[in-house]
């Protein structure tokens, strides 16, 4: 049996440990900024992990995942605006709406394949974007400020930076664990089987599209949770957050880290957002470097960070 201690596993374990201990570091050094930055990173990692479930394991290239971030966020924002501040209502609504949206667009989109699937998920996400822009009662194009974060009846205080960070981290670990369980279940095996050879799976009696659809809905729901967290993090929600470039960024994070690996999207998100942060400190024109870097990664580093670590592990 292959040794479990290799470069790849060590990096993953160290990253998880680092994320767990980050608030301690932040408290010791008084560096609040790093905690704020990593709260954002953790939330986006959850979104990327959910996208990876359908992209990496399901072979469904969704170019519209930002829509769920928006739906989850708007559910929180609109309910807060209407005076319903309880997270026990806001969050289930956010999840349910994301699931419902995923169910409807999934049922339609899954009739297409390949590049058409990329385009149709994009089209639906753009529709969601324009719906949000048209919500004049909730700020329209300008967005909606959330004056009070979700309350959980004294259980947890989302305005407390450390508590909120750990909540996000709990959601991330929970989400990754859930995805791990799904991927290794019978259901997950069927989904991966369909990705590899749809005809064969059909022939041995699996209803390929039903499995795909359920997987699509689960992914959307997890991303909706990330949306609810993100809205609480920024205290603000606007259509700009669900524009197609955001969906593109999520795809980049997944591919950066390594598509179809459990922790790849988490590492990809950390590297992508940290790189963005660091480059933007050196120069205002960070995308001037990030853009070509992306091109080079696609051209030369297949399998992303996880692929690279995997090659290192094999020595």
């Amino acid at each position, binding site marked *: 049996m292959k040794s479990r201690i290799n470069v790849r596993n060590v990096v993953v374990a160290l990253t998880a440990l680092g994320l767990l201990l980050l608030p301690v570091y932040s408290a010791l050094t008084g560096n609040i900024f790093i905690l704020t930055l990593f709260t954002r990173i953790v939330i986006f990692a959850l979104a990327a992990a959910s996208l990876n479930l359908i*992209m990496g394991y399901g072979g469904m*290239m969704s*170019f519209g995942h930002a829509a769920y971030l928006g739906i989850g966020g708007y559910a929180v924002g609109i309910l807060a605006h209407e005076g319903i501040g309880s997270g026990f209502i806001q969050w289930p609504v956010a999840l349910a709406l994301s699931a419902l949206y995923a169910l409807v667009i999934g049922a*339609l*989109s899954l*009739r*297409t394949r*390949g*590049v*058409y699937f*990329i*385009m*149709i998920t*994009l*089209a*639906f996400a*753009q*529709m969601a974007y*324009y*719906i949000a*822009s*048209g*919500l*004049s*009662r909730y700020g*329209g194009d300008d967005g909606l400020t959330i004056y009070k974060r979700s309350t959980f009846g004294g259980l947890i205080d989302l305005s407390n930076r450390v508590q909120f960070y750990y909540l996000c981290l709990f959601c991330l670990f929970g989400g990754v664990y859930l995805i791990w369980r799904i991927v290794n279940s019978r259901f997950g095996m069927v989904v991966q089987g369909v990705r590899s050879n749809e005809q064969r799976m059909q022939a041995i009696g699996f209803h390929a599209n039903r499995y795909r659809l359920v997987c699509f809905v689960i992914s959307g729901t997890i991303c909706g949770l990330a949306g609810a967290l993100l809205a609480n993090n920024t205290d603000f929600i606007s259509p700009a957050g669900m524009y*197609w*470039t955001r969906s*593109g960024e999520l*795809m*980049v994070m997944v*591919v950066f880290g390594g598509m179809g690996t459990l922790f790849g999207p988490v590492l990809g998100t950390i590297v992508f957002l940290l790189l963005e942060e660091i480059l933007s400190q050196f120069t205002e*024109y*960070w*995308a*001037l470097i*990030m*853009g*070509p*870097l*992306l*091109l080079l990664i*696609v*051209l030369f580093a297949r399998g992303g960070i996880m692929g690279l670590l995997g090659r290192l592990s094999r020595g």
Partner: protein
Amino acid sequence: MLVLVEQSLNGLQFGLLLFLLAAGLTLVFGIMDFVNLAHGSLYMMGAYFAATFVAWTNSFVLGILLALGATLLLGILLEFVALRHLYGRDHLDQVLATFGLILFFNDAVRLIWGPAGLSLPLPSWLTVPVQIVPGVFYPAYRLSIIVVALAVAAMLYIVVMRTRIGMLIRAGASNREMIGALGINIKLLFTLVFGLGAALAGLAGLMQAPILTVQIGMGENILILAFVIIVIGGIGSIRGAFLAAIFVGMIDTLGRAFLPDLLRTVLSSAAASTAAPALSSMLIYLLMAIVLVVRPEGLFPAAKR
């Protein structure tokens, strides 16, 4: 009635502009099987080049001719340096790589021209209204866009359907390996097609420039519209792109012009004026979703591979 004529002409003009953008995209997509998100950046570059060269040369015509050449060269350079290595790769890889190029171009423009937008002033001979039928006046510039775009469309049709190059392009679209095996320099053909597409995108950008401001990110929204058009029209089909572009241009323009009034009959005035543009933008995506569900290969698909 007058408003309807005017808005229909605006719709036609916008549709033809979209066609110029979509034609390049559908050729590249249909022949090289390449998804080029950076097409919108070429559109933006066309507009920036035009604004710069017109200011330089003090001549509108000379400036836009120079801009057209510059976009063509940029497209060829881009293909040669980066994009040709992505042919035959996964669509996802192409989407990501060209997404990176969008980031690059946006910041490059910000570095070179600054974050503020530019404007491209029209020469006086293009600003006069023209009487098209007795009693109906229409801006000369918009009319000239319609004329130029129609001329380009006709030229494109002739080139693709009636010349040897066009024959090779069509052959490339239906079977790449085969025309390579027949001794055609397929790399050169691809570079040529890509350059042609880039020039068309640049032309669309520079013609749109005097109407809107020239700004960063101007290519992103319209790029997605162009993708919608080629999906509705059928990937690789110029005829499909032409019809779908005019259709989409009409829906967009007429929706923006008349939906607010229609909505005002059921909604409050303020709500209607926010909801209407959103609704008319949505209509297009709705149309594409319906087309994809009912006829995934598009309304006017190119000949089967």
